[in-house]
Structures are given as structure tokens and as C-alpha cells.
């Protein structure tokens, strides 16, 4: 691990300003992704700003009838919150399908959204990786790509986003609230938070240097049957090969977001419109532009079958 200086921030504005003005600064929340990557010197911040004492750990009702989730609410507490369990079951389910009890106790809402890919070559510093070292190439293209993305990819990078929580947030139309280094707040719909790789896979989201996530807002509850189904290589404590998060209404309409297959939680409102026509129709729309490798082409079938199982469960 490279050496760094450390400060505990006490206000959101001070945290954002410090991060923007100090070269090489990063926020640290739970630390469960950042420290992992710092140990491998994939992340090399020279200054860490600890945001754990900012008081952003509350879940509050909004005037619109939704909930504002503080950026520092731990994954365990979010999944266990009575209002989330009652009105946003999809979010509880997605959180509980991720990581382990110990990790969820530390992992935060903001950190979970910004966690980085689990592409094995991103983690292996002896391999070329455009995300880790822009311009060095992509070892995954001709390598072990079974776990990686099939849609939204580019010639530069086929990494997938590993978060379960983000898939639920996408299906629930969550909005990310931030404060910019000059102190101005802004709102970013979750659909716009993560960027596709294009030829700059090292730029993963639209936040500016020093921009601090303060909360994630859920719109008012949408009801319906809310199901999160995660397919993985072992029954627990493993990242998704494919996951499907869906909200299905009694009339068969609804929304669906898919995890494990793209650089961001994958949803297409046009595909949602096909829900009454079944899993095949939805999957065809969702994966129109898919560009799988030989090793991960199975994910195309797996998305359809997982969605099919979700729809069967929703019908009861």
C-alpha cells in the first residue's frame, strides 16, 4: 500500500472541498472496496478523507412520499429498515444477496454504488488493463471472460459492474444526490450515474473530482411483486453471473433491471414495455446490442431463463 495522509471530515462541504483541492485525494466510507484495491496498489490515493462522521446515516421520508437514504447508511441497516422491507422489498433482497454479513455491516450506500469491477485482469497488476492503466490493452478480450459483460461493452473494456444494490436502485428509479466542490448540490438519476466504457473505461461515472454523494432518494413506493433473483457459482458470498430485479404489477406490466451483464445496472424502458409478452420478448429488447465473447455467451440464455423464473414467481 502506498503512503497517504488522512483526515476525518466534519462537514459535507469541507469534505468535497478538500477532495477537490488536494491532489490525489479520495473519500473513504466503509473501505471494503477501496482498501482492497489500495493493498494491491490499483488505487493509490495520497490523501484519504474519512466521511464516516458526516451524519449521513439516516433514512428519512421525503415530502413526495419516498425515502431519502443517507450516503453512509450501512447495507445491513438499509436492508433491515422496516419501511424498505415493506415498500421496497426489491432493495432489501438485492442487498441481502450481496457480500457477507460482516461486509454489509461496513459497506455503505454510496460506496456500494461506486465499487469497482471484479474483472480478474483489473485485479492482476501484471496484466494489461485499459481500466487500470489506460492504453495498455484489455487482457479479458482474449482471456477468461466468463464472468464479464455482454452488453454496453466496447473494444477497450468488457468489465461488468458488480453491485447487486445498484440493480434494485435502477429498477426503483432512485436519484443520487451530491454536493459539488463549490458547495452546490445536484441530483443525478441512477440511470445516468455510471458511464459506458467507450474508449475511456477508466472513467466509470459522471461525478466530478471531489463531488460527494450525500444521499440516494427513492420515489414513492410503486407496489407490485418485487423480486430479486441472483444466479451465481455458489449459493452465497459470490458475485452474480446474472441477476434480475423486477417489479411486476397484477396486470403483468412492470420494470426490470439486470445485473452482472453490463458496465452498469442494465435496464431499457422499451424492454419494460414487453413484460406482458413474456421473458423472451423482454430479453430480445434488453440484449439487442449484445456483444458476448465465446465464454460468456451463455449469459444471453441465462438472462431469459432467470427472468422467466422471476415472472413465474410473480404470477404466484
Amino acid at each position: 500500500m502506498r503512503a497517504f495522509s488522512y483526515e476525518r471530515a466534519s462537514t459535507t462541504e469541507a469534505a468535497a472541498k478538500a477532495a477537490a483541492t488536494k491532489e490525489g485525494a479520495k473519500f473513504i466510507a466503509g473501505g471494503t472496496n477501496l482498501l482492497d484495491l489500495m493493498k494491491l496498489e490499483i488505487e493509490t490515493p495520497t490523501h484519504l478523507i474519512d466521511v464516516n462522521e458526516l451524519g449521513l446515516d439516516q433514512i428519512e421520508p421525503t415530502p413526495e412520499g419516498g425515502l431519502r437514504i443517507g450516503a453512509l447508511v450501512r447495507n445491513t441497516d438499509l436492508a433491515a429498515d422496516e419501511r424498505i422491507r415493506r415498500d421496497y422489498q426489491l432493495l432489501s433482497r438485492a442487498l441481502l444477496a450481496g457480500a457477507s454479513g460482516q461486509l454489509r455491516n461496513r459497506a455503505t450506500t454510496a460506496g456500494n454504488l461506486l465499487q469497482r469491477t471484479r474483472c480478474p485482469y483489473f485485479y492482476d497488476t501484471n496484466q494489461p488493463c485499459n481500466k487500470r492503466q489506460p492504453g495498455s490493452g484489455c487482457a479479458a478480450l482474449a482471456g477468461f471472460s466468463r464472468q464479464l459483460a455482454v452488453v454496453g461493452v466496447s473494444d477497450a473494456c468488457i468489465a461488468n459492474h458488480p453491485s447487486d444494490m445498484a440493480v434494485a436502485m435502477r429498477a426503483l428509479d432512485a436519484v443520487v444526490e451530491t454536493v459539488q466542490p463549490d458547495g452546490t448540490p445536484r441530483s443525478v438519476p441512477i440511470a445516468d450515474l455510471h458511464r459506458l466504457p467507450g474508449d475511456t473505461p477508466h472513467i466509470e461515472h459522471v461525478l466530478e473530482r471531489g463531488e460527494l454523494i450525500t444521499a440516494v432518494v427513492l420515489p414513492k413506493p410503486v407496489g407490485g411483486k418485487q423480486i430479486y433473483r441472483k444466479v451465481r457459482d455458489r449459493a452465497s458470498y459470490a458475485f452474480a453471473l446474472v441477476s434480475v430485479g423486477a417489479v411486476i404489477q397484477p396486470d403483468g406490466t412492470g420494470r426490470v433491471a439486470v445485473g452482472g451483464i453490463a458496465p452498469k445496472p442494465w435496464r431499457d424502458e422499451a424492454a419494460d414495455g414487453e413484460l406482458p409478452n413474456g421473458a423472451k420478448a423482454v430479453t430480445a429488447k434488453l440484449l439487442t446490442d449484445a456483444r458476448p465473447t465465446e465464454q460468456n455467451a451463455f449469459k444471453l440464455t441465462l438472462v431469459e431463463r432467470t427472468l422467466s423464473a422471476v415472472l413465474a414467481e410473480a404470477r404466484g
Partner: protein
Amino acid sequence: MQSPGALEISRRDLLVASAATVTVASASSLGHAQTNPPAASQSTTVGFTVNGERRELRLDNRTTLLDALREHLHLTGTKKGCDHGQCGACTVLIDGRRVNACLTLAVMHEGDTITTIEGVGQPGNLHPMQAAFVNHDGFQCGYCTPGQICSSIAMLEEIAANIPSHVTSDLTAPAEITAAEIRERMSGNICRCGAYSNIVEAITEVAGRKA
């Protein structure tokens, strides 16, 4: 710091001492400036309570809570398996909640209350979970055991606090203690010896006594 004082030096102490030397050597190869003290701006003073005792340390900011416990406070009961959040051997309790001590920095724990396996119970005064692990042979080599025990104690508290799990069928009903729940909730603790079925039996016994 704990000092061995006038106690006789056992073979185990010697082993611990030589293991510590090895750790220092490998740490410096990873870029730790162990021979020179870190620059002032790269170290921080932090105070927390460990097993009921107030501790204050000045640490290189890079020191994980796990390394602070093992290398600085010589509480070597907490184990390092993967050092990347993947095995659970380093599980300790912070303010009663289980966490992976390898993925958190010691300097982030100002004012916190930390319990390690040494604080859970001692020979002659075992915690019921420790005794149950012994009675049920909930281990073979024992390397994962401190983490398993800390994790299982906090896990039962999580069920008592009605925190749901991936296998909880009804999110609006109270959490139950079943073998399936215990297995899912303990999935963050890997046992290379595969002592899982006895671990579940030990936890089930303690859970039953509590219920």
C-alpha cells in the same frame, strides 16, 4: 502494549515472535516504511477500547485494524487469512457488530469499542459459544475458529434484532433461527478444513439455549 514480564517464555511465545519478524519483513517488501517512522502527516494518533482496556496508538495510516490488533497490541487470536475480505478469519466485533478487521483502517476507529476473541472469553472462563465449539468439535486446525466464534455471536444478535437474511422467506415476519439461516448468515466465514456441519451444531446449541 502487553509485556510478557516475568512469565516464562514458552515455545509458543517464541513462535509468535518469529512470526512477527516474518510479517514485518514481508510488509516492508510491500512498500511499508517499517525501518523509518512514517512522515508525521502519514501517521495518526487513535484511541479505542479493546477488550475493555483503553488503548492509544500512533499508527502509520496504512495500518489495518487487523494489523493494529495483531502487531501492535499483540492480540494474535484474530487471524489473517486472505487480507481481502474473502474469508472472515479476521472477524472482530466493533461496537457489538461483526466486521472484517482486514478491510478497515485502525485510524478510522477513534472512540470505538472493539472485542476480539481474547475478550470474548478465556480458558477457564469460556463464552458459551467457545464452549460449544469445543463440545461439538467445531474446528480441525482452528485457524478460522476465532473468526467463526466472533461472527456467530454477533450473528445471533443480528437475528435477535430482526435483521433479515437472503434465505428469510417473509421480510415482514420476525427472523427465525434455522439451520438454513445459520448457514447463510455464516457464509462470510470460510473453513478450509470443512468443519461446517459441526460449526452449525455448535451455534444451534447456543441459539437454542438463548431462545
